[in-house]
């Protein structure tokens, strides 16, 4: 019974990481109707930046925040420089750019920081096992951080006028322009936010899986499964889907297929969702009367 409880808690902890990456995917999907395959590699690169800053002697949380800012700027620049010129281009152009970005960031990480597997510090290690050994300090801490980030993002989109403008630009770019919203910049901000959220996920998972250039490959797959499960056009649903996939993955890995085959669970979820309920559990249904 203890084992089951532990698997559940661990599932929620990794689920938080998937939820964050799923949210990053959904944010860009909502605005552009494309899935950014490079989201994971961008997050890995951000994690290397964080490690470099920490090794340079910056306090952990200063390095953490600085990494978020750098990642945000990087995301904005990528959108402005690479995506904006092809905004109206066909889907395959975007797929090509995303794959290109994936390769570039993966190789950049390896070339700049070498391919050896690195340990990554956790600010929560000192805590040790908590709640009667049920949960490690890092699991608890990283879950708290991802939850806090998700909450901040929610509050931003729900209550600020910039967040409202970003949603308006994603839903209806033509009308958004007519009320004076600079839609192009809203897209760029969305990319920046997605990159920053991805960076949080990378930094929080790195102490668990260790840092190497392909660290986020599997995580992106789980996150994508989570996004699809919750509804690729629904940020809240994608977050719940991310947590659900984390729990399914841990329980399935422990009791069903073993750790070696865990990743296939993500593929099973993806295929099952697409076959049974393509819009996901919480896919948005727009009510409209004419």
């Amino acid at each position: 019974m203890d084992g089951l409880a532990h698997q559940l808690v661990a599932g929620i902890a990794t689920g938080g990481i998937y939820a964050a990456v799923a949210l990053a995917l959904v944010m860009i999907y909502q605005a552009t109707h494309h899935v950014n395959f490079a989201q994971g590699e961008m997050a890995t690169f951000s994690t290397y930046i964080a490690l470099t800053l920490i090794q340079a002697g910056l306090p952990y949380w200063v390095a953490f925040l600085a990494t978020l800012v750098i990642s945000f700027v990087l995301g904005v620049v990528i959108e402005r420089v690479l995506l904006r010129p092809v905004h109206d281009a066909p889907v395959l152009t975007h797929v090509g750019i995303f794959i290109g970005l994936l390769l570039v960031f993966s190789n950049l990480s390896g070339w700049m920081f070498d391919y050896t597997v690195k340990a990554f510090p956790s600010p929560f290690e000192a805590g040790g096992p908590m709640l009667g050994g049920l949960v490690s300090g890092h699991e608890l801490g990283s879950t708290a951080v991802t939850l806090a980030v998700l909450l901040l993002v929610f509050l931003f989109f729900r209550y600020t006028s910039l967040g409202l403008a970003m949603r308006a630009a994603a839903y209806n770019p033509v009308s958004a322009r007519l009320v004076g919203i600079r839609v192009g910049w809203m897209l760029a901000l969305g990319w920046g936010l997605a990159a920053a959220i991805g960076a949080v996920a990378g930094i929080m998972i790195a102490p668990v899986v260790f840092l190497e250039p392909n660290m986020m490959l599997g995580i992106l797959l789980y996150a994508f499964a989570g996004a699809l499960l919750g509804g690729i056009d629904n940020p809240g649903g994608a977050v719940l889907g991310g947590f659900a996939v984390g729990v399914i993955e841990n329980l399935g890995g422990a009791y069903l297929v073993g750790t070696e085959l865990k990743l296939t669970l993500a593929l099973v979820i993806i295929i099952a969702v697409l076959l049974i309920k393509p819009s996901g559990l919480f896919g948005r249904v727009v009510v409209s009367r004419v």
Partner: protein
Amino acid sequence: MTAPPEAPILDVRGLTAGYGQTAVLHGLDFVVDQGGVTALLGANGAGKTTTLRAICGMVRTGGEIDFAGQRIGGLATEDIARRGIAHVPDGRGTFMELTVEENFRLGAYTRRDPEVAADFERVFGYFPRLRQRFRQQAGTLSGGEQQMLAIARALLLRPRLLLMDEPSFGLAPLIVQEIFAIMQRIRGDQGVSILLVEQNANLALDIADRAYLLETGRIVISGPAAEIRQDEAIRRSYLGY
């Protein structure tokens, strides 16, 4: 009819516009007077909607568009909106997924002045029903309410020029009358100038003081609305009633 003392708020000369290789407008000249209502009339496909899109920079254009004495041809749509031109497009441009309240907030998005809250109240004065629907998703409103919301959103920009694309489209006659009565009030209260596109010429000529008749991208008749309304020949051959 004497000319108004002020320069027109909108002065368009030689306006051309098109989609891809296809030219739709072949050199239009027209004005909207300061505080006036100009009606663009014409059949389907005459280029009325394209004219409004051209003014807002939503299509490729040529010719000169002067708004409040400044060239706006070639500017981005969002910059034209920021200068004070609000557009109620065909299809109404409502953010269906958002609430009525959020649509209101978006209407006032470019404004930083403290009078936004007072303007919400003023708009509720015109459209009391929107107050009851304030927290509701815009997509669940009836057609008439959606048209009201579209006009409300446009007014919240505090425009100096309001472009309206067929506000009567798809609505029951009673609702249309209600909306046109409210437009009369808005015109009187706010001093906003209006460029109105309508297929329902009778309605449009009632509220307009100047009218232009479009046929396949050209202006074929122009003049004071009252004169056009009284001209039997025009009415029979162009307006069809």
